[in-house]
């Protein structure tokens, strides 16, 4: 399974994860991931048929809060660390191109 990872897969994963990686980083990650996924191979031998997935830290059931109104807003907090704001709103570059 280790050969699943090459430079092209790393580039694709980096694009999905929205992380720019330089050439050297890509090459190192190919090697690291091959080795790590090679280690995971031990799991293949383990029979997990009909074993349920454990998806959380323990068997907590859905936790609902009471359906009551309360005033508890954190609005405006964090604004001071934001690069640009406009009349209390956070300003970011456009997501879509105007011509798209």
């Amino acid at each position, binding site marked *: *399974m280790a050969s*699943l*990872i090459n430079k092209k*897969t*790393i580039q694709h*994963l*980096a694009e*999905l*994860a*929205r*992380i*720019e*990686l*330089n050439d050297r*980083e890509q090459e*190192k*990650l190919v090697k*690291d*991931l091959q*080795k*790590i996924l090679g*280690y*995971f191979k*031990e*799991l293949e031998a*383990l029979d*997990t048929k009909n*074993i*349920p*997935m*454990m*998806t*959380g*830290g*323990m068997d*907590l059931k859905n*936790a609902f*809060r009471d359906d009551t109104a309360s005033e508890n807003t*954190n609005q405006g*907090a*964090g604004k*001071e*660390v*934001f*690069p640009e704001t406009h009349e209390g709103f*956070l300003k*970011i*570059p*456009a*997501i879509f*191109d105007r011509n798209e």
Partner: protein
Amino acid sequence: MSDFSHFTIKSFSEGLRAKKFSARETTQELFAHIKETDKKIGAYLSLDEEGALKDAEHVDRALAEGQELDPLAGVPLAIKDNILVKGLPATAGSRILKNYIANYDAGVIKKLKSKHAIFLGKTNLDEFAMGSSTENSAFQITRNPHDLKRVPGGSSGGSAAAVAAHLALAALGSDTGGSIRQPASLCGVVGLKPTYGVVSRSGLIALASSLDQIGPITKTVEDAALLFQGIAGHDKMDATSSKTTYQWKEFSNPQLEKIKQMKVGLPKEYFATNLTKEMDQALDETIHRFEHLGIQFKTISLPHTKYALSCYYIILPAEASSNLARFDGVRYARIDAQNPDHQHSNLKEIYLKQRGLGFGSEVKRRIILGTFVLSSGYYDAYYKKAQQVRSLIARDFDRAFKEVDVIFAPTTPTSAFAIGEKTADPLSMYLSDIFTIPVNLAGLPAISIPIQQKISENEAVPLPIGFQLIGKHFREADILGLGQLYEKS
């Protein structure tokens, strides 16, 4: 004031009430000591002298007025820098959060503030708690106070080193796969990882939400019980927070004679491999000491132990890759915002550049790995499989706890390793946590307690090592009780 290094939370609190010294005076002296000593240790990333002194004065005034205060009042604490304290930096050891100032208090901080504990500053960690040596911090390395050429362990290395070097009376860390217990073991202090859900994760910068848990790092087991009591309890800001209630009498006044009736399991898989001769011998002596106190041991089996590391390094990166998506270079301050190179025209470019610039290599490695194991076509082979294996590991413990009350194990395979020794090979670093990881996967409580080693004449003082006690869900009282029995014997 008498020498700060002799104090535990308990003795400090008693001295404070007896007016042997004031909270302000101790805090002030402590900052002088930190400024002198921390130059060589590097435990703290930031200090809050002004805030701490103000809070200390408040405690002194309240005591002078005869108010009844919690044992944690006036106690100077160090806080891992992935736990939010309003108005203080919270970098999580990452460049991407270099300029972030927390704008609310974590659940545990709210609780401790209501008890008038003092926060000295924020401690160093591996970036986003990813690591076992604190070498992955973007800002500095932390050195082991017992040997400055060695690591303090990680990821809560700053907190463990601060307590070991008497730069705080106690500290908070976070434990995702051993990040409280492993550094506690390497620094010769006590570290408790509570049951999943017992301590609020609100305001803890999330690494892997189904594994993370905040806990105390202290000088004694008795102090760990005190600080645990100060941070445990339901919090509506954390949806996974448990409503289980505790009998706190068991913690403040453990019945040692009753504790001696406990049956302790020795999992054969934990002693089979990977232990150095010194470690093996020290663990053996500890078992004998417990036996001498009347504790009965029984060999048990946790057959899926060997799969825990693989299981963990699939689940953790998967959860981390989605948790860390929020650090997009937009929401939590931009790096070098004034730099014309960072004036990007579209959002995607900001994400790519800021995350590329802001994350260190271990964080990038785990995000890429997590993205891979969750990606279409590989999800079943890795992520689904790992969650099934997690069930098997949890069942191993369930079965074992039908036979025994507590499980005894090593905390780490070795004592503190040298700085730089494991940085080149991520897998060798990952192996530092083989004895601590299964506990997080099963959501159990566990504590690391320093082994009281024999010091022979003409021999160098050995490096600290710890042993681990693992308890049933919500039974911190068992492991803390057994730990106190060892500590007081």
